[in-house]
Structure formats: structure tokens, C-alpha cells
């Protein structure tokens, strides 16, 4: 019994020390990676600074800032009237006059 317990304990101890070593390595790696992530985040923020994005946007994109008349509230989009099959005469969308009149929509100019 003593021998069995002894062998068992030895194996266990060995396993534990092995796991401990692995854990230490992993922690170290995690730390290194966290460090790298930290630096990369700073670099990402630096590359995404608004003045740079503005400059790049002007150079490479044809997009312009959204104007108020280019947006429309979801409630202002009229439903497509359902085809009236004569089964239920009242089953159509109420006339648009009941809602706010939709705003004029202009599209982006592309130079």
C-alpha cells in the first residue's frame, strides 16, 4: 500500500511540476502578447487619428459627409401597397397623407 501511495504521489508531483512549467511559459507568452496588443492598439489609434482619416478619405474616397436631406426616417418610408385581391377591401396601407410627408432625397454626387 505504501509503495502504491508512494508511486502515485511521485507521478502526481511530476505531473504538477510539468503543468506548472507549462503554466509559467503560457503566462509569460500571454504577457508578451498583451504587451504587443497594447502597442498595436496604440498604433491602431494613431493610424485612425481623425486628421489622417480625413486626409486619406479625401484622397481615396468619393464619399462626402452625410447631409440631412440624404437621410430619411424609417417611418417615412412608405409600405408597398398590398395587392388588393378583393377579398378584404380594407386591407391596404392608409394613404401617405396620414404620415409626415417624406423628405426629398438626393443622392451622392460622384465627381
Amino acid at each position, binding site marked *: 500500500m505504501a509503495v502504491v501511495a508512494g508511486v502515485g504521489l511521485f507521478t502526481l508531483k511530476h505531473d504538477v511540476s510539468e503543468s506548472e512549467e507549462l503554466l509559467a511559459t503560457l503566462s509569460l507568452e500571454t504577457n508578451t502578447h498583451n504587451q504587443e496588443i497594447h502597442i498595436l492598439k*496604440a498604433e491602431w489609434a494613431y493610424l485612425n487619428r481623425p*486628421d489622417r482619416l480625413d486626409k486619406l478619405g479625401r484622397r481615396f474616397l468619393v464619399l462626402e459627409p452625410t447631409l440631412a436631406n440624404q437621410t430619411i426616417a424609417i417611418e417615412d418610408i412608405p409600405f408597398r401597397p398590398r395587392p388588393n385581391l378583393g377579398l378584404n377591401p380594407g386591407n391596404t396601407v392608409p394613404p401617405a397623407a396620414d404620415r409626415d410627408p417624406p423628405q426629398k432625397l438626393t443622392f451622392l454626387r460622384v465627381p
Partner: protein
Amino acid sequence: MIGRQSSPSRRTRRRPPVPGEIEIARVRLMVAGSLAIAGFLLVATRLTIVTVLPTTEATRTIHPTKPSTYNVSRANILDRNGKLLATNLKTFSLYANPNLIQNPKSTAEKIVAILPDLAIETVERQLEEKRSFVWIKRGLTPEQKYELNKLGNPALDFKTEEKRFYPAGRVAGHVVGFTNIDNQGRGGFERKFDRELTTTSASFSLSIDLRVQYIISQALRDALKNFKAIGATGIVMDANNGQVIAMVSLPDFNPNHLSSTTDKTRFNQATHGVYEMGSTFKIFTTAMALESRKISIQDGYDASRPIRVGRFVIRDYRAKNRWLSLPEILIHSSNIGSAKMALDVGRDKQRDFLKRLGLLEKPTLELEEEEIGSPITPDPWRDVNAMTIGYGHGIAVSPIQITSAVAAVINGGIFYQPTLLLNRSNLGGRRVVSEKTSDKIRRLLRVVVTNGSGRKADAANYLVGGKTGTAEKVEGQGYKRKAVRSSFVGAFPMNKPRYVVFAMIDEPIGNKDTLGYATGGWVAAPLVGRVISRIAPLLGVKPINHENPRVQNQMAISIVTKKLGKKHFASF
């Protein structure tokens, strides 16, 4: 038989045992055996305790190096959307031991080849010194460190240091602030929250929106250039909790390159500077008059003649020379009307009212005391002061004060102290004017933009309302006629205000586009209009159809005009 009997005795070759000895041996065996058994029992018990039983103080707990997040000695500062505004980075600092250097000249050449911003003569002189330690350069990038290491010179070594880094650079310089080379907060939020930033590891979220901050700073920069102005400042504030969304002061500085800044660029005009605001103060005079119930929106004043008070003459910029109703006083920005209105309410009431709006004492804000300006107020507060303050002269307040005061009179009447923190705990505001007065002020400010001096601020579909201001700058004893500070304070959408925008240009010079005018209506109002049309979609403000009857009803106002003794009503 005999042989068989004698054989055991022969094998043991012992003399026949003495009866007592057997006893002794037995006892010894027993003792040794029980000791051994006790030993095994001990081991077995210990084993059971360690392995089978649940954790006791005997079991060893392992504390491995915790896979922590990358810890730095100063917490990050973020904007309201989590964008990084300030962070600490590990950098390397190069030092040398000149005693170990054989050839200072070639070593200096090699170093300068990697660090081109160093002067070769300086480095050479440093390396020739009879010392064992000289700093060559602090704040190196990992790449530069690698290159320097490759030189393989044992006299060169590195020290790891942390350096504060501001990814957005100059865009939010005044708000975020800066640190010195030893990472101690020396300006802005960094200075006020120096202790908190170094003791907690959690990030601090500011109420600033970096995008809005950039948009308004860019608009002000353009104005600075176009009008050859000497300075500009702008603020965007959440009207319903006092959070500062953007705060800009130009000329500005880059907190990453502190050596190139001056006291002038570090000066935060938005909080530190106090200025006579001019006509924007008429908003408060009107609110006070309506709140006192002495004057209704149908009443008005005779503004046909300038007022003489001692050596002062109060006159209108573009005089209408007639009776003006209360809305007209704002639309035409009549000094005469506002002065009379202020006097009607009374100087003590005026002082109390302005005090409640936080205009007479330093605002509380997450900045160091030294970066917040104290308002300049008259003492004693005479009738003549009441009159000039009625149209914004004879009192100097900071832009942040006027912005939060305007927010209070239009948001339904609740005053909130301005804040730079996204999650401030004590958000309680205090009532300064009634809902009713606030509603009237909203309509009045809208009509100033649709029909008055603020026309150019009318960003399409965002229902902008506001008031222009043009204040002559004080020089010596009198006012400098040509040098002005032009401002506009506006809010949107006016039927349910969400944001207040303030802009002020210092000493603008009119150009061809403005027909030579440099007034608030020509310089600051269009700027605010442009800013609003760009930031509104970013801030999630929906466009408003002002032809909608409900909206028209919310903004309707009846204006009495009296010409040649007759009353006319006009609705806007």
C-alpha cells in the same frame, strides 16, 4: 531421533536461550515494529490529508505568474466611444559609458546614422566626457533599439522607460492635457486626475467625442485662416447633462511634442479665458425678463433713441429707430432694448439670476483650478452695469460658462455643471427658469436664426436656434473699434434641444466672402451651421422636417411690430 533432535540446535549454533532473553528480544521487536508501523501510519495519514481531504492549510496552493493585462504605471484615457486618447508605451532610453569608448568619433557617427535627429558634434562631445554615464537619447522606438544593439558596442546600454503617448495628437490637446518627461500630469485632465490615473488601472472615459472634436477644431482652423484671426475657441455640449462633447482652443499644441509649445498655445481659451461676450448675453436678459413676468413676449421697448448714462452712450449696431417688441430686440440684437429690459427687471434680480446660471463664479470642471478662469463682474453692481450687462458688456465670463448657461435656459430650465467625465456620479441639476420660459426662449432663438442675425447658422433640417455676438475688444481704457470677438451660441434641434454649440473667433478680419464684415453673424454663425450639419448625423440626431405642422406649432411665435403707432402681428 537424537540426531533429529539435536539438528535444530546445531543449525542455530546457539547456546540454549536463557528464558529472560527471549522476552527482551520480543520487546525489542515489538518496539521496532510498532515504530515502523507508526511511521507508515503517519505517512498514510499525511497522504490522506494531502490528497483525499479537501483543501486544508497543509495543501500548497500554487501562485503562478498571473497572466495579467499589460500593466503600465498610468491608466489610459479614452473618449466617449472608447477611442484611445492617451496611453503609456514602453520606450527605451540610450545611455553610454564614455570611459569604455575607444573611438568617440566613429561611435558618434554610427549613433547619428541610426538617430538622425541628433547632432553629431553634441554626441561626440558627450562621448569624450570623463564620466561613466551620459544620456544620449530618451524615448527610442523598438526598431531603433534593435539597430543600436546591432552595433555591439559594450559602452552603450538601454534603460526601459514608459512614455505617455497621445494618438490623436493636437486634436484634443487642451482637454486631455499632457505630462512631463517623468509622466506626471502637467496640464488638462492629466493634471487634475494625476493621482487617480496613477493609482487605478482601469481606463478613464471622457465625455469627449473625438470625431466631433476634430470636426469643430477643423472648422475653427479654417476660420482662423480665412479671417486672419489670432485665436478661436469652440465647445459642443450635451444640453441635458452638461457633458462636454468637444472643447477646442486655437492656437493649439501637440502633447506629444511638448518642447515646441508655448504658454500661449497651452492656454485654454474655452475654460481659462474670460471675455465680454456681447449680444449672446441678451438670451439671459430675455429669459430673466420673461421669468420675472414683468414683461411678456408681446411687450417691447422704444429703441428709437440712444441712451445716455453719464459718459456712456448705448446705441444699436444697426438701429431700427423705433419701438421694438421683445422678439424683435433679439432678432435685430438691440442694445437699447436689452439695456432697458435689464433695468426694468432690476439690478439685484439680474445679479441673482446670473448667479443661478453659474455666470458669476468659477465653474466646476475636471480641470485644475489654474486652468479655469474666474469671471470678471462689476462691484458695486450699479444701474449702469445692469444696463451694459443686459447686452453682454461690463461682465466677462468663459466660453464654458456661457455654454452651460445657454444649455440651462433652453433644455427646459435645468442647470448642469459642465463635466468632462462620461460617468460622473452626481448628475443632479438645479432649476433656473420655468419650463414655460425655456419654451419661449427656444422659439425666440429659432426665430433669430430663421429671420435674424443668425441666418447663416441654419443647417438644413436640424432646426438650429441661437444668437450671435460681436464684442469689441477692450484696449487700455476704452474699446478697440476694429478689433472684435465674434461668436455664436446655438442649439439643435430647437423643438427638443440635445446639443449646444458655441464658437468664438478672436479678431477676425472680414474678407470678400463676408463683404468685409467680421461680425458674429458673418463669421461664427456659418461655422456653427457647418459644424452642426456634420456632427448631427454622428451624434444620432434625426433630421427634422420643419414643414411638419407639429414642428411648426412647436416653433411658432407671434411677433408684434409697431410702426407709426399701429400694431401689426406677424407669425413666424
